[in-house]
């Protein structure tokens, strides 16, 4: 299982290192290449969306760990497109009762095969003031997961909805805005909200941990070649110490992602709590790391031409998704108190 995970990671990374280079991402944000669509094609061809999918639906069944690996690598490459939305929505759908419905089972197949693209609401807590719903997803998304009553979710058809693609700071991903009235509910996912929250939180944390890793690696590489005052700037101790701290904190982020994913896959009592804590701590840490990577680049860090801002903006959007980190910690604190009251050992590590 560990070996399989490592193999999957390696295969995704190899493809992204080749197909989603810094040049490719810049070509995408400059409107010169449809890297997002290329990656969707690749995802289809290489079966990326099947990695986490339960075997019952024809997937490999690597669950939240698989979801985390995929999104970690996408974050690490600042990969254009919204596979995060499709992958989270797909997993949620596949684990809901409605997945037994033949039409939904068929939809799942079409998602894995790339003919259907899913969007997902940016937040499940507060509806937007103007009555519009915001989704993260590609402009071509035809189905979306949005909040329903209580813990229910709605699977909504977007084919008749007029979605505006909102211009956002994170140029590698895409937010749609549309009136909720324009969507038709295809199905109600009863009680699926906690599952969605956990998976969404894990995917966001994974993307952020990957983004922190990606920008840190590139910053270290830059500091090994940039000279000032006749020395490589990577030899300046004040900068080295900051990087050492970032390195250690990035490792901490990785561990929180795996902590949450393992808990989910083990069906542990603490699964939701850990996913929320991972999202909160990892997105906060990723912001600090990505922000300092801009600073450590000096002047060029302030340019659109270099990479650091791609990761910084991505890390910021991640921070804003799902719910504010404070609210997530509050929710986790309640869950922790409940767990202690009920004698659940949510801090055990297998």
């Amino acid at each position, binding site marked *: 299982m560990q070996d399989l995970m490592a193999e999957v990671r390696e295969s995704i990374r190899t493809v992204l290192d080749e197909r989603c280079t810094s040049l490719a991402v810049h070509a995408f944000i400059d409107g010169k290449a449809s890297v997002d669509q290329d990656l969707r094609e690749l995802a289809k061809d290489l079966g990326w969306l099947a990695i986490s999918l339960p075997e019952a639906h024809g997937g490999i069944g690597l669950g939240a760990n698989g979801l985390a690996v995929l999104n970690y690598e996408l974050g690490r490459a600042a990969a254009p497109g919204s596979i995060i939305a499709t992958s989270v929505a797909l997993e949620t759908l596949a684990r809901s009762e409605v997945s037994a419905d033949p039409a939904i089972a068929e939809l799942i197949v079409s998602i894995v095969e790339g003919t259907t693209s899913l969007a997902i609401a940016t937040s499940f807590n507060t509806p937007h003031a103007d009555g519009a719903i915001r989704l993260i997803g590609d402009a071509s998304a035809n189905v979306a997961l949005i909040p329903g009553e209580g813990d229910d979710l709605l699977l909504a058809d977007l084919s008749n909805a007029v979605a505006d693609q909102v211009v956002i700071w994170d140029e590698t991903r895409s937010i749609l805005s549309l009136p909720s009235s324009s969507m038709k509910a295809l199905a109600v996912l009863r009680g699926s909200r906690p599952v969605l929250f956990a998976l969404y939180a894990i995917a966001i944390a994974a993307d952020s941990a990957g983004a922190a890793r990606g920008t840190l690696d590139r910053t270290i590489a830059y500091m090994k070649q940039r000279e000032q005052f006749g020395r490589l700037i990577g030899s300046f101790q004040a900068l080295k110490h900051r990087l050492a701290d970032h390195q250690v904190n990035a490792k901490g982020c990785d561990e929180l992602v795996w902590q949450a994913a393992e808990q989910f896959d083990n069906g542990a009592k603490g699964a939701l709590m850990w996913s929320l804590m991972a999202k909160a701590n990892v997105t906060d840490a990723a912001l600090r790391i990505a*922000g300092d990577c801009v600073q450590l680049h000096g002047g060029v860090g302030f*340019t659109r031409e270099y990479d650091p801002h791609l990761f910084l*903006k991505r890390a910021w959007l991640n921070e804003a998704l799902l719910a504010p980190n404070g609210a997530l910690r509050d929710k986790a604190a309640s869950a922790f108190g409940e767990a202690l009251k009920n004698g659940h050992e949510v801090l055990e590590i297998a």
Partner: protein
Amino acid sequence: MIIDLREDVGAFRSAIRDWIAQTLPSDWAEVADRGTEDEAVEYQRWWFAELAKQGLSVPHWPSEFGGVGLGIAGQMIVADEMARAGTPPLNVFVVTLNHLPGTLIPCGNADQRARYLPAASKGVVWCQGFSEPGAGSDLASLRCRAVRDGDHYVINGQKIWSSMSRFAKHCILLVRTDPNVAKHAGISFLIMDMDTPGLEVRRIEQIDGQADFSELFLTDVRVPVANLVGAENDGWRVAQATLASERGVLAFEAGERRRHMLEDYYRNAVAVKAAWLEDDEFRRQFMTHLADLQASRRMIRQLLHDHENGEAHATTAMASARIKLFQTTLIQKIAELVARLEGLDGHLRQPFNSQRRFVGMFDYLNSFGWTISGGTNEIMRNVIAERDLGLPRG
């Protein structure tokens, strides 16, 4: 002209305040926010011209060049009223207003002063060509090469981080005239017209969506030897005058603008009963930053007060470095907090900010301009550690 009232502090201040209220369209900020950087520059040119009519464009310049030698206390009144009213900030004129006189008055010759300063006082935009891709923090290692050819220099090389040069008519330029001596000893200081053949200006797209900065590519650019400021190979000394030109009033104005923005932000939050006011963490972070902003504003006032009283000469560099580090770090923290408070709404892209109110992500991304440019904060820490604290060099 309003400037004529300057001896009576109270009258001077009220006259400025009344005049702004009459002159500035009430919707300028909204218009500007909907606009582009280019439109904002047009706004600044118009505003500069209006100021000039009242003697308020270059009041700090000596009278022979169009000013009235307005002291720092007077400049602070002007800046205070501008910040209070949220007038268009004069970013595009920063070099014109400060670096240019700071250089030409002590180091230029009479011809240069006569030729450039009066025109500049009417609103000619200047830019600066100092940094290079390989010479940022280590400015003296610059390599842009100027070779004498008769009564011209022929210049080849590249400059970067040239602020507002897309809009500039002239440029103060550092070039290497002697590559065979110690790096500080072979530099010269020139004035270059921005329409000189062989000069290409290429905008640098910034992370905040703006393009304040440009790169300059110089290919056989010919600049008259008469445009040399100071002696050939004495440019490093001249550049020190440029870099030391008093810009404390700019930091003052930046602090004052943020004070009003922060105050307005809270007032609005109270008015709309913003949810974050009930969040202990956010509310306390806000108050923490509010207090630090006050500390920062006091530090700047102290520096300017010392300047005014001629007490600051020995310590200006340290105090400036301290203020730069404290103020820009704080600006970034405030922007980060606002970005968090705005949540997802803050991620909708805002092309421009009129600097009358906080705009979450824009201000946050823009804040790296503050922490990186004008000497990175890392350089500031070196300066403070060595000059202020007397710690040994590494």
